[in-house]
């Protein structure tokens, strides 16, 4: 278990890499070779993360005695029906915290695996700071959730490092690019293994800064810097929520320690409900900004101004899931604060679902391939948040896991396309690339299928779990979330089909001759595509595996990653796998593809008809009719529903939300100018200066007393004597 206790090495390595690259890169290594440092470091990180992951699984499988929470069996009467015992368990003891282990949920846990409550590995290192006589340590907190993210971050970061050697080759700031990639990785890893909420804040902000720096990587162009600023400032707005929320947590529990906070809540659920609600609401603001949730999502599409590998790493796979990760990490807070267990709708679920919906809708209206992917990311992040909002903790993390791979693959694929197609991301200037770029095309399609949730790709499994979670919920289902989820499933498939159509099919509409990217780019694509296929295997439901006798491998993520040591105390339950739900989800995705396919295919046909007149077959009457229907569908349904809706949504997004953000900045500046001009310079400084002028002019006035004539002086002398005398004689 050495690695778990010394997990601090993992973020330390890229941090050192950052320092080395930044300060010694140019001089001692050579500006064009700094990637060696970064890749080496990331390789190490990956290995160590893998070791950590392995050790964690060992810890779960063969828990050392000190890793298991002592279970107080107050009786084995916890029935199978979760709904019942949930009510019972809120007694004066913490039976709930322990009672859900093992076979109490035999069915619910799929495969009947008994999961003891494994404590996270917490190592503290030093007195980081102290106050009021109490010292606060810095440390690492490693559990399944941590190692899962470690693996995600390390893998994708490593691949992005490799991919970038070609993608940003010859860039004006190659050194800085790699330095910040390293720093970002370090910050993200630091965030992931935060032992206390202060570390969470630190990591949270540091990744934000790296994001800022990398979005603004090409800072010579104003739009890039605007985007960087927007990203940072929007995140800052959310950070208000983060700060306040964390402070509320501190004020409630008088500790920053995540473990302590979670344990306190899970052992005594129901207490501090209001404080937790406030904290959860505040933290939701932070999540909204960092993870691109409505209404603070607008920075994320703009953030595509950064280099594409950065988008893949930061704005798709890792940083943007920080919000999701934070919710998952402090899940008891949200669970209790939003009463997820008992409600059938709550703020988090709604925001998540709504974000997923609008993200998906907006993805239709984009011509920039990266923006489509960005909105897709928004949408998928909304999915994850929604999952957390409905109590499907594992589903959310599972989706986070799968999404990281296929979305990174998509972004890198888009980068590859752009690399080939003269650095444009405008889909109108692409088309027909499948022939020139077979590897990119294939990986892109695989990832798209994964994203669309087509069996058996990774996305299918995770999305299915989310939909299932919405359907079942905890005590109540979340019907609205289910509707949102289904709609998004359909739309996702549709817009991804559109992207593929525009990018890879049809005729090439750009300049020059597109070509496949070199291996250094395609290999990472293939690795990621592989993961897009396989990642789903990490949490397969039991029924799928039973036929092949591998039910022991079912629900690995749930088993290893879920912090049941906290969640069980809350009474979190897991829904049984449902074939029907899976089929519905799949059907929706397929129909999305189909509709879009038909739509664009028809357009192709129209084009083709005029162009390929000679070899077009006759007898298209039926198809004509179909066209007519299609036309009807397109003109009536799509044009009146989809387009206007999408347009409206886009307009709302651009004109209201986005402008609000922009105008908030402008307004602040205007207010600042006004305050400065009128209040500061006018009123406050003005009054000071007026006082000075008043003194000056009264001095001038008083000089007239000094007429120079001695008899006037005499008058003053005797007059003053007389007046004083009169006054004193009368008064005294």
């Amino acid at each position, binding site marked *: 278990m050495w690695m778990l206790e010394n997990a601090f090495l993992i973020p330390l390595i890229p941090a050192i890499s950052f320092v080395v690259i930044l300060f010694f890169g140019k001089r001692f290594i050579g500006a064009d070779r700094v990637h060696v440092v970064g890749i080496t470091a990331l390789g190490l990180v990956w290995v160590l993360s893998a070791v950590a992951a392995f050790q964690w699984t060992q810890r779960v499988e063969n828990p050392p005695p000190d890793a298991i929470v002592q279970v107080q069996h107050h009786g084995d009467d916890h029935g199978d029906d979760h709904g019942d015992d949930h009510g019972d368990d809120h007694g004066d003891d913490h039976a709930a915290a322990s009672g859900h282990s093992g076979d109490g949920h035999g069915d619910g846990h799929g495969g009947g695996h008994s999961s003891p409550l494994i404590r996270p590995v917490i190592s503290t290192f030093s007195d980081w700071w102290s106050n009021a006589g109490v010292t606060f340590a810095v440390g690492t907190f490693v559990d399944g959730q941590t190692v899962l993210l470690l693996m995600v971050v390390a893998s994708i970061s490593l691949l992005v490092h490799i991919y970038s050697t070609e993608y940003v080759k010859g860039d004006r700031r190659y050194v800085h690019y790699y330095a910040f990639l390293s720093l970002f990785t370090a910050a993200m890893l630091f965030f992931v293994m935060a032992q206390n909420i202060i570390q969470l804040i630190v990591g949270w902000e540091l990744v934000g800064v790296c994001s800022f720096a990398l979005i603004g990587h090409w800072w010579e162009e104003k739009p890039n810097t605007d985007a960087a600023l927007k990203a940072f400032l929007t995140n800052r707005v959310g950070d208000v929520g983060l700060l306040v929320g964390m402070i509320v947590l501190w004020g409630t529990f008088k500790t920053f320690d995540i473990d302590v906070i979670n344990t306190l809540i899970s052992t005594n659920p129901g207490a501090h409900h209001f404080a937790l609600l406030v904290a959860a609401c505040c933290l939701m603001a932070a999540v909204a900004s960092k993870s691109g949730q409505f209404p603070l999502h607008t920075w994320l599409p703009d953030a595509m101004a950064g280099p594409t590998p950065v988008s893949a790493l930061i704005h798709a796979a890792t940083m943007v899931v920080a919000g999701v990760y934070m919710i998952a990490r402090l899940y008891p807070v949200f669970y209790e604060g939003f009463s997820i267990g008992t409600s059938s709708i709550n703020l988090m679920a709604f925001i998540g679902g709504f974000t997923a919906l609008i993200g998906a809708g907006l993805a239709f209206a984009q011509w920039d391939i990266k923006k489509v992917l960005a909105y897709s990311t928004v949408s998928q992040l909304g999915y994850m948040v929604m999952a957390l909002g409905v109590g499907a903790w594992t589903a959310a993390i599972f989706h986070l896991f799968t999404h990281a791979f296929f979305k990174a693959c998509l972004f890198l694929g888009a980068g590859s396309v752009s690399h080939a197609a003269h650095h444009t991301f405008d889909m109108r200037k692409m088309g027909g690339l499948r022939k020139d770029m077979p590897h990119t095309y294939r990986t892109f399609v695989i990832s798209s299928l994964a994203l669309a949730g087509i069996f058996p790709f990774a996305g299918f499994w995770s999305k299915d779990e989310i939909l299932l979670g919405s359907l079942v919920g905890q005590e109540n289902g979340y019907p609205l979330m289910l509707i949102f989820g289904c709609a998004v499933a359909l739309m996702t498939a549709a817009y991804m089909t559109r992207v593929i159509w525009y990018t890879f099919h049809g005729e090439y509409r750009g300049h020059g001759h597109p070509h496949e990217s070199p291996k250094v780019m395609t290999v990472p694509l293939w690795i990621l595509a592989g993961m897009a296929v396989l990642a789903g295997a990490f949490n397969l439901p039991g029924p799928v595996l039973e036929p092949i006798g591998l039910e022991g491998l079912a629900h690995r993520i749930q088993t290893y990653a879920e912090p049941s040591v906290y969640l069980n105390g809350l009474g979190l339950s897991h829904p049984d796998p449902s074939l029907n739900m899976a089929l519905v989800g799949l059907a929706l995705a397929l129909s999305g593809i189909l509709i879009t396919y038909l739509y664009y295919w028809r357009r192709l046909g129209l084009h083709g008809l005029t162009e390929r007149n000679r070899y077009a077959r006759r007898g298209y009457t039926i198809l004509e009719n179909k066209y007519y229907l299609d036309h009807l569908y397109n003109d009536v349904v799509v044009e009146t529903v989809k387009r206007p809706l999408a347009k409206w949504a886009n307009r709302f997004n651009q004109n209201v939300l986005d402008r609000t953000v922009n105008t908030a900045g402008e307004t602040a500046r205007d207010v600042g100018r006004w305050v400065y001009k009128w209040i500061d310079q006018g009123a406050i400084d003005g009054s000071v200066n007026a006082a000075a002028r008043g003194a000056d002019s009264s001095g001038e006035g008083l000089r007239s007393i000094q007429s120079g004539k001695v*008899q*006037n002086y005499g008058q003053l002398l005797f007059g003053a004597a*007389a007046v004083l*005398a009169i006054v004193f004689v009368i008064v005294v």
Partner: protein
Amino acid sequence: MVAQNIFFGIISAIVVISAVRMVTTRNIVHAALYLVAVLAGLGALYVLLTAEFIATTQVLVYIGAVMVLFLFGIMLTKAPLGNVMEMTGKQWPIAIVVAALLGGVTIYSLLNRFGSDRLVTDGPIYRTADVSDEVFSTYIVPFEAVSVLLLAALIGAIVLARKD
């Protein structure tokens, strides 16, 4: 007592009228002469108050020395003897107001405090020798100081007034 009162009345009338004339006359030499009248009248009052040495000094120093000084001053500055120069400035109303206020409050206070207190007439009478005893014992330091003062005034006045 009546005689003294009558004497006081006559003398004080002379003094006040002369004083007023002095500050209002347009002829500077007349003014000097009115001042002589005032000083002389006061000398008489000192006699009435049994202050013989003061009365003597009043005559000797003031009328004898100071007035001569003034007349010299008038002559040396060739002050117009007639009303060629406006003797009273334009601000005389202010001067009147100030003087009246000052006089008013003083007189009010005196009346308020001393009311109709009678002057002690049967007190000890101090002769010149008593005065000199006092000067040369208790007030020896101020006396010497006055002598220095007069010397200094003399030296300084000579320096200032002499033609270079």
